[in-house]
């Protein structure tokens, strides 16, 4: 591979020029890797905070306050759907109650269901800060801020007042961190049977049936299909309810893509200008090589190989630098960490090398068209 050998020699004999362009590519790719990973991780964190531990799709009765029945038809549509996280279909009963400890009182939003079902949606076991979660008869799981505010811990008893039902005691089994201050202060999970008795509903009647899908962004599509299959119930999805968040995420993605595209354009212009200068600097050598019989194709390939060497070197350096930046970011106290996505980094690397190769098009064509007589005659 004479073209590779010549390309490498040309680069080696201009070490400063070569090092500068490799550094330029490396900085561009590092920015690409860092910004891309940062935005992806930030968005994943935002999505996880918003919906990671809450239902993606909720099925309710059409009339407000009426129960939805977990019929065979509903079961077959929801549970049989392969896009649903296995086991993540939870029939729940919800109610509002007033907590009172004799001195003060606070409203609580209660969700009742089987622990095994609720765990798939809310990950109560994984979020437990104290105690052992349990939702047996008369048991309640409370949020960490609520517990702190009222000095409650597992084993304590709380008194809940339901409209038209008087005070009902419940025993705290666990304190959980639900990921947001509002939820941690206002939300609690309770024995479902207790809520059923208060509402007077039958065993198969629920306030809602909640589900989580494997890919959160499939929720709207899945919900639309379920609406067609189950016209008698009301089906809502997190995407419809969080349109503002989605718009923000999309805007963030768009700005991230813009930054990445402009960085790549800057990298491409940098390589192209360096190679163009190199092609002019090496015109005489290329003319001599052509006079000795080097073909147009192989002459052009010299600059293609230069671009490839610079591109691969710069990209490798850029990925290393990108990882170093991500590591540096991990030392900064922020509520989320950047998780480098190997597929994204592989794609960034491929784009980096491709941009380098594309940048060599002009010098490659110019070189392959060079007539050796121009050089030989000019001495």
């Amino acid at each position, binding site marked *: 591979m004479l073209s590779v050998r010549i390309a490498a020699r040309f680069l080696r004999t201009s070490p400063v020029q070569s090092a500068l362009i490799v550094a330029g590519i490396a900085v561009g790719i590092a920015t690409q890797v860092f910004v891309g990973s940062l935005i992806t991780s930030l968005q994943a964190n935002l999505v996880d905070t918003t919906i990671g531990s809450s239902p993606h799709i909720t099925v309710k009765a059409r009339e407000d306050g009426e129960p939805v029945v977990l019929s065979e038809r509903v079961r077959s549509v929801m549970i049989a759907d392969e896009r649903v996280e296995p086991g993540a279909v939870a029939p729940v009963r919800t109610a509002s109650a007033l907590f009172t400890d004799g001195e003060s009182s606070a409203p609580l939003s209660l969700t009742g269901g089987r622990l095994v079902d609720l765990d798939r949606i809310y990950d109560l076991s994984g979020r437990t800060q104290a105690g052992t979660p349990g939702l047996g008869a008369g048991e309640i799981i409370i949020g960490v801020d609520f517990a702190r505010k009222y000095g409650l811990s597992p084993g304590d008893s709380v008194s809940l007042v339901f409209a038209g039902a008087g005070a009902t005691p419940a025993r705290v089994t666990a304190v959980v961190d639900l990921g947001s201050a509002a939820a941690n202060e206002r939300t609690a999970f309770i024995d479902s049977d207790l809520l059923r008795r208060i509402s007077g509903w039958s065993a198969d009647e629920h306030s809602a049936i909640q589900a989580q899908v494997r890919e959160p962004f499939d929720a709207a599509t899945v919900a639309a299909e379920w609406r067609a299959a189950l016209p008698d119930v009301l089906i809502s999805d997190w995407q419809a309810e969080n349109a503002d968040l989605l718009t923000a995420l999309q805007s963030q993605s768009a700005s991230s893509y813009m930054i990445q595209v402009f960085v790549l354009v800057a990298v491409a212009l940098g390589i192209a200008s360096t190679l163009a200068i190199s092609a002019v600097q090496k015109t005489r050598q290329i003319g001599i090589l052509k006079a000795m019989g080097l073909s147009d194709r192989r002459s052009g390939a010299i600059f293609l190989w230069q671009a490839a060497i610079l591109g691969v070197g710069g990209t490798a350096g850029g990925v290393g630098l990108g990882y170093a930046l991500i590591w540096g970011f991990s030392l900064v106290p922020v509520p989320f960490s950047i998780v480098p996505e190997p597929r994204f980094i592989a794609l960034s690397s491929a784009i980096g090398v491709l941009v380098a190769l594309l940048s060599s098009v002009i010098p490659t064509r110019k070189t392959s068209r060079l007539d050796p*007589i121009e050089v030989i005659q000019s001495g």
Partner: protein
Amino acid sequence: MADRLLIAEELHRVYGSGETSTRALNGVSFEFGEGEFAAIIGQSGSGKSTLLNLLGLLDTPTSGTVRYRDRDTGSLSTRARAELRNGLIGFVFQFHHLLPEFTVFENVAMPALISGALPPGEIRRRAEEALGLLGLADVDAKNANALSGGQKQRVAIARALMNRPALVLADEPTGNLDTTNTELVYELFRKVRSETGTAFLIVTHDRKVAQRTDRILEVLDGELVSDERNRYLD
């Protein structure tokens, strides 16, 4: 005459077009044999370098043909012309045109590296042989830029011989050398010619230099005005 190596037939070369055109060569024809040792002489601007470039397949004639071993080169592709240049012709330019990024050894080996026809061991052997023949064995690892003018020109000659060409075309090869080095270069040409049978066609403006060859072709205003055996050698 020895076996025919080259035939130039009615070579014309016009640069530009219309009123601003320049006629550099005007119907030059001659034959050249295998192993001949000849010079093309002429004043500056007479068209001798243009003729050499046409014979070296670096340039294409406006009309006329250049045949090598009865093969018409006019219809050849750019690639085929490059291959023919690489295998059949060795060039020695006035300004030696070495590659400053490469060592003396690499410069000499370059035509064989371009051809890709020889194994590395054979390339090394041939390059060392050419360097030895030209007294450059001790400078093979040096950068081409680190040599004196005379040494550079000898490297260029070694490079021209690397692929054992049938013909070496040399354009003012001693134009930048002193008398001693000029003498040395022509002795080398003769030595190589007698040892390898390579033909030499040397362009020079200096009749004294041309008289060191066996045949002198004189170009004047783009025309071949004389073609004679060198009587001074007799």
